[in-house]
């Protein structure tokens, strides 16, 4: 487990952790503060994946309902708080994306495309040391494989989406991505 204590700037992490723990005790004031501090980032996750503002607003609401209901699970995972929060947001947004695709596969993706702005300075919420390490490991991958990992994480692309975008068979894409993930794990453990 990546230890929050060893990350630079861990006091911001600690603040968010203690807010989540207070939410687990049904502290509404802590919930309001947690919303104020993290809703911008978590909404950003939903907007990037869903590329549709009204849908992203519904999704981020679902995200905070989950946070309220599952906050007591947070301490069990021993994770860094942003990691836990972002996982909930990505899950929610990707889930919604998959359902939408099932329901309306006729709509061309292009119709839903929204340009997302470059990350602003306020988006730099992740400890720089960790970021540089992962960036370094990703840069060791071939360009198209690095793009596939990022496309899955940031845009919520499925294996089927990635295979179509990279014009390779599904099996090939799965082999690529799995090997890339193994290489990332090795690189991070070096």
């Amino acid at each position, binding site marked *: 487990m990546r230890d929050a204590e060893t990350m630079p700037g861990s006091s911001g992490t600690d603040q968010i952790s203690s807010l989540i723990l207070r939410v687990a005790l049904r502290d509404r004031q802590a919930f309001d503060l947690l*919303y104020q*501090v993290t809703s911008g980032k978590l909404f950003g996750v939903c907007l990037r994946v869903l590329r549709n503002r009204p849908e992203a607003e519904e999704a981020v609401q679902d995200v905070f309902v989950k946070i309220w209901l599952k906050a007591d699970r947070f301490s069990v995972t021993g994770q860094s708080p942003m990691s836990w929060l972002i996982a909930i947001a990505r899950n929610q947004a990707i889930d919604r994306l998959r359902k939408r695709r099932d329901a309306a596969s006729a709509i061309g993706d292009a119709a839903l495309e929204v340009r997302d702005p470059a990350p602003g300075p306020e988006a730099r919420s992740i400890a720089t040391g960790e970021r540089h390490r992962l960036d370094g490991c990703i840069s060791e991958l071939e360009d198209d494989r690095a793009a596939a990992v990022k496309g899955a*994480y940031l845009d919520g692309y499925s294996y089927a989406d990635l295979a179509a975008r990279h014009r390779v068979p*599904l099996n090939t894409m799965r082999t690529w991505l799995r090997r890339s993930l193994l290489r990332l794990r090795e690189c991070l453990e070096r």
Partner: protein
Amino acid sequence: MSTVGIDLPDDSGGDDILAAEFVLGVLPADDHAALERRLDGDAGFARQVAAWQDRLLPLADGFAEGHPSPAVKRDLDIRLFGQAASGPRAGFWESLALWRGLAGIATAAFLFAVALPRLAPDPAADQARLVASLADQASDVHYVAVYDPGHGVVGLSHLSGNPAAGRAFELWVVQAGQAPVSLGVIPAGAAVHLTLDSPLRTLVGTGAQLAISLEPPGGSPTGLPTGAVVAAGDLRGI
């Protein structure tokens, strides 16, 4: 192991790589749902998933901050608690609710300004910030205060309630068993700052209470509160 409907390569990598695929969310919906169910009863798998979430977290820097509309928080509160954060919620009050929501955005911006720099390495200001929610059941005045001991600055985010015409809000710090000490008149505005003189800084700490009273413009003439206390709250670490 997997029912993805894709032939597994021989170097399938076992559960750990399945955990990574689950974290990325690349699997078909049925497989993803099956793994999600597995998380509940399989602590080892849950740990692998959490480890991958942590490993890949730096990629989340690629998510730009957004600004959900104020209606999102209001609807969320109604959904979870049956009412908006503060009081009435429809018809005539709609504009007030919206206005409170906008104040919430200002709070968000303000809290980002104070909280997020803490997430980046910042060796300079290492003293923990304190926060207090200032409210009182008898009034609709609500502020959130954040105190930065490193710079001696109290940031106040105005959520609701205004002074009566011709009156001003004054902020006080109260330590148990002692007379309130004025920190100054609160300027009008959604997010304002008061910079404290050094002697005052020693009074503001965990266990102290902040309070807001209604005073003549320019502040209490006596150095002690002369009007009603309309909001108060304890300072605590966040």
